[in-house]
């Protein structure tokens, strides 16, 4: 694997960290950054391994985690071997899939899916490295508590933002100007029936702030209750048994649109446009790291993960109860009220291209790369990064759900980092929305994504 990547964020990150420490440091780091960039350029030919595709002997020899190698390409997409080169070693020494771009930069082939923002640009990347997709799921197996939960490959979505200005509540809170680096990875599959019933999803949450708040957490976070979800427009939908059936209840909720939410917003008369904003999922997580002794909370955080125009909605009675927005654009064609607007125009155009070849298409396949319903637009609300660990140890070992935190490892435990601070100041410190201005679509990116 030889990919020459000169990473501008190296300098940006160095500059940002220098800004905290002073002008002199900034000058120093500027010089170091320049030298580093020059050095990186010169050494590029010799050191061309992509940071997320380290195909060293150690990786090749590592045991594959369950999540590794489970993706299979569709027609015209990159070979599986190319995809599997993007991997990393997990804390357990196993080989896990890792972030990769939608298009392989070497061969130019498309993987047909994306994992969000390149984590290498995060200021936290040097601290935490590549998120190992499926590590928490793997640890659930290792915990041997009669519960297995493995998730598909395409649902792993990375998002990050550096130097995020947090908001404070209260008049005195205006004195504070807390800035944070945030790096997250949530498995957020929005193309299948999985999240209709399954509330356990792998979450990597890393945050480091100027008030010394710092967390590096990997868990299977329980979002709401298993077997059900909340409709975007209100109310709970009971769907069926969870997998695993003994999934714990969690705080938060998975808000997913169902047909009853969409009908009035999407089916409109002539001259109107459908409100495709209703096609929006919000997974509102609340994760707490709790001690084994006394169940005391050490840390908690409540990021909300939102996806716009996913490739599914809940439609009871449909195959797997999964409705496809792309099909909506073709349905109800002979009725006065039907889906209209730019998204449906794109679908109609794709269908016309398909039929021009002589094929008889009336519906655009949901997994066609031309469909605008592919879930590539997402955003995260950063909420309530809470640390209650003053004078406590920074290294904790928890079960895969973030509970039973102890200072020594145990079977199935995950090593977590929580700063020895308490950031309860009597005023709320919350983050803004990040990622809302980005789209992670690319050539060939399609549902399932």
């Amino acid at each position, binding site marked *: 694997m030889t990919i020459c990547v000169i990473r501008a964020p190296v300098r940006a990150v160095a500059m940002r960290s220098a800004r*905290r420490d002073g002008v002199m440091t900034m000058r120093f780091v500027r010089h170091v950054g320049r030298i580093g960039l020059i050095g990186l350029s010169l050494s590029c030919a010799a050191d061309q391994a992509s940071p997320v595709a380290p195909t060293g002997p150690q990786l090749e020899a590592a045991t594959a985690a369950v999540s590794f190698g489970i993706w299979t390409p569709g027609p015209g997409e990159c070979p599986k071997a190319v995809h599997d080169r993007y991997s990393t070693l997990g804390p357990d020494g196993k080989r896990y899939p890792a972030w990769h771009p939608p298009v392989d930069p070497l061969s130019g082939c498309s993987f047909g899916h994306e994992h969000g923002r390149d984590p290498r640009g995060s200021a936290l990347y040097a601290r935490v490295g590549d998120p190992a997709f499926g590590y928490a799921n793997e640890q659930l197996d290792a915990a041997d508590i009669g519960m297995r939960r493995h998730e598909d490959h395409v649902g792993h979505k990375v998002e990050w933002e550096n130097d995020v*200005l947090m*908001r404070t*509540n*209260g*008049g*005195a*809170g*205006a*004195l*504070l*100007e*807390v*800035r944070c680096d945030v790096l997250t990875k949530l498995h957020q599959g929005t193309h299948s029936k999985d999240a209709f019933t399954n509330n356990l999803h792998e979450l990597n949450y890393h945050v480091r*702030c*100027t*008030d*010394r708040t710092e967390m590096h957490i990997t868990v299977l976070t329980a979002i709401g209750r298993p077997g059900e979800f909340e409709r975007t427009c209100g109310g709970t939908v009971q769907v069926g048994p969870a997998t695993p059936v003994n999934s714990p209840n969690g*705080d*938060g909720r998975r*808000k997913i649109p169902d047909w009853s939410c969409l009908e009035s917003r999407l089916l409109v008369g002539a001259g109107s446009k459908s409100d495709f904003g209703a096609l929006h999922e*919000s997974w*509102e997580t*609340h994760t707490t790291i709790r001690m084994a002794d006394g169940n005391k909370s050490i840390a908690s955080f*409540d990021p*909300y993960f*939102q996806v716009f125009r996913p490739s599914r909605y809940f439609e009871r009675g449909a195959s797997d109860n999964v409705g496809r927005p792309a099909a909506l654009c073709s349905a109800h064609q002979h009725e006065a009220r039907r889906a209209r607007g730019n998204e449906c125009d794109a679908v109609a155009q794709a269908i016309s291209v398909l039929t021009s070849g002589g094929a008889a298409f009336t519906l655009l396949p949901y997994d066609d790369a031309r469909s605008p319903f592919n879930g590539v637009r997402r*955003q995260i*609300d950063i*909420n*309530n990064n809470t640390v209650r660990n*003053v004078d406590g140890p920074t290294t904790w070992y928890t079960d895969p759900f973030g509970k039973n935190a102890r200072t020594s490892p145990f079977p199935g435990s995950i090593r977590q980092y929580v700063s020895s*601070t*308490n*950031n*309860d*100041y*009597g*005023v709320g410190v*919350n983050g*803004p*929305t990040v990622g*809302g201005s980005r789209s992670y679509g690319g050539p060939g990116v399609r549902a399932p994504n």
Partner: protein
Amino acid sequence: MPASSTPRPATTRFARQRFAPLTLPRRAVATMWLLPRAVLTVALLIGSVTAAHELQAQSRSATDSTGSAPRLATPGAIARDARAFAKRVGLWGAVGVGRGSAGLRCAACQSDQTAAFAGTLSIGGRPHPRFHVGIETWAWLDVIGNGVDRMARGTQLIARHYPLANRAMHVTGGAGTSRFSVDDGNTRFDATSPALTLGLGWDVPYRGVLLSPAISVVASTGGALASRRTGNNVADNASLGLWRSTLSITWF
């Protein structure tokens, strides 16, 4: 759990606007204001001196009722009075008021400087005609509105030196502690830290006292910024920067 998933609107409260981070255009505007501020400070000093001279002249004119020509307060006369004051030893005290600009800097602080009223109260001794020592307490209060106050205050041991023989100019140095706090009646943040003061002033005699326009700078570092509501530290190395221009009345 937060109740809503919808992106929240930007905070619009007044205090937030006051402390909004300086964008590049705002920095430019702030820089542009430096010159007028400096001019204003110098004008205040010159005005204070001039006013003191004028008051002194009027005072002498009014008390000269013998029919002889009014005795004008010439620079020479003022210098003579200043020399007389300069020869005194013993206790002294001073009260001053003025304007100042202060801001707190730390890794997690909004560091904009804001201007507000300042005051000083000093008392001490004069072991040598050209050397004062004493203790000074000072305060700076910025009433922002919506119940939010920003206050800086401190107490310091000070030493004042008159480097020029029989001249009124003096330099003041001090060391002590300072505290910067923001209080909204519900939550208070404050940082206490060691502080140093450096000042430059001028004494003008007037009716048995000295009018002393002065400018001074207070700098502190190493303060722990904490929420007094919860007792938790926000930052360990908060530093206060304050400059003020004051007009003091000094008694001997």
